[in-house]
């Protein structure tokens, strides 16, 4: 994790420096926009960290490994796909959860499936999507995306 931090810090420093040399005002404006986005995210982020911390205490690593771990096979995969399709967790909030699952022994295929169905399939938002795209198109789009998400999850499991 610290390696990642080093990457982000150095990229941010280089980009800021180049930007500052090119246009001072734009750079300050960019910082402000970044800060606004960060501020909006901070509270929901803190809330989810609290929930994850409690969940990590309550759900034992053994349970997670049993249902989502490397040996869970098709069942774990199915649980991840269904839960990911139905629930509506904003992506940025789902990453700490996914990282926690991985740490607790869940397999890459399962976490990959969970993440992709979460992003690409929206059962909860389907009524809204139907209002925009029409029933047939919205359902078809979600069906295609569900299949794609399963393929992506499997491929992640094979490659990583």
């Amino acid at each position, binding site marked *: 994790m610290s390696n990642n931090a080093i990457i*982000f810090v150095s990229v941010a420093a280089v980009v800021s420096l180049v930007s500052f040399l090119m246009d001072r005002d734009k750079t300050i404006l960019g910082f402000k926009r970044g800060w606004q986005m960060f501020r909006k995210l901070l509270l929901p982020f803190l809330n989810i960290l609290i929930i994850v911390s409690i969940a990590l205490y309550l759900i034992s690593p053994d349970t997670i490994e049993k249902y989502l771990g490397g040996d869970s096979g098709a069942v774990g995969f199915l649980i991840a796909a269904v839960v990911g399709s139905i629930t509506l967790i904003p*992506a940025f909030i789902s990453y700490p959860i996914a990282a926690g699952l991985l740490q607790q022994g869940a397999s890459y295929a399962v976490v990959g499936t969970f993440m992709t169905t979460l992003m690409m399939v929206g059962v909860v938002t389907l009524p809204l999507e139907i209002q925009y795209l029409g029933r047939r198109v919205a359902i078809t789009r979600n069906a295609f995306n569900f299949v794609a998400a399963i393929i992506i999850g499997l491929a992640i499991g094979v490659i990583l």
Partner: protein
Amino acid sequence: MKQLARKYQPYIWIAVFIMATIASFSLGFDPGKTVFTNFRVSLVEMLSFLPFLFIIVGLFDVWVPKEKIQKHIGQESGIKGIALVVLLAMLQAGPLYGAFPIAYILYKKGISARNLFIYLGAFSSMKIPMLGIEIGYLGIDFTLVRTLISLPLFIAIGFLMERFMKGKHFEVFDPGNKAAAKTVQ
């Protein structure tokens, strides 16, 4: 009073958590201490990269204006159109349902059905701020593999949707203004 409650409602969880933590430490309640340790580790982890990510995202937002790309989507087709649509989607933020109003605007500007669904695909899984957070939590390998597999798949979905809708009348509605959308048609 109601207004006051709504204003502070988002902070209730944090407040309860802080009080519970203080209580746990003063009473020596071990589960509470463990939960706080979990929280502290995740918080440090998050703060080690998130602020820097948003410096990058903010600068990106200022230097690459979305409007500039949006102008070229309608007319262009082929690979260039696809690339621009993907790039435009990557510059957005927020959950997928936030993409539908934008899809409506793009539709009114004459985006092709294929590009519209490629846009939705890229919006759902390739937004730059999200990629940054994903790298921070799941590592560059996971993010790269996931993105590189997803990209051809949602482009394929764009082509499939285009075929699926061939000969059928397709339009994007604006639920907030359905009557107006009908008259445009």
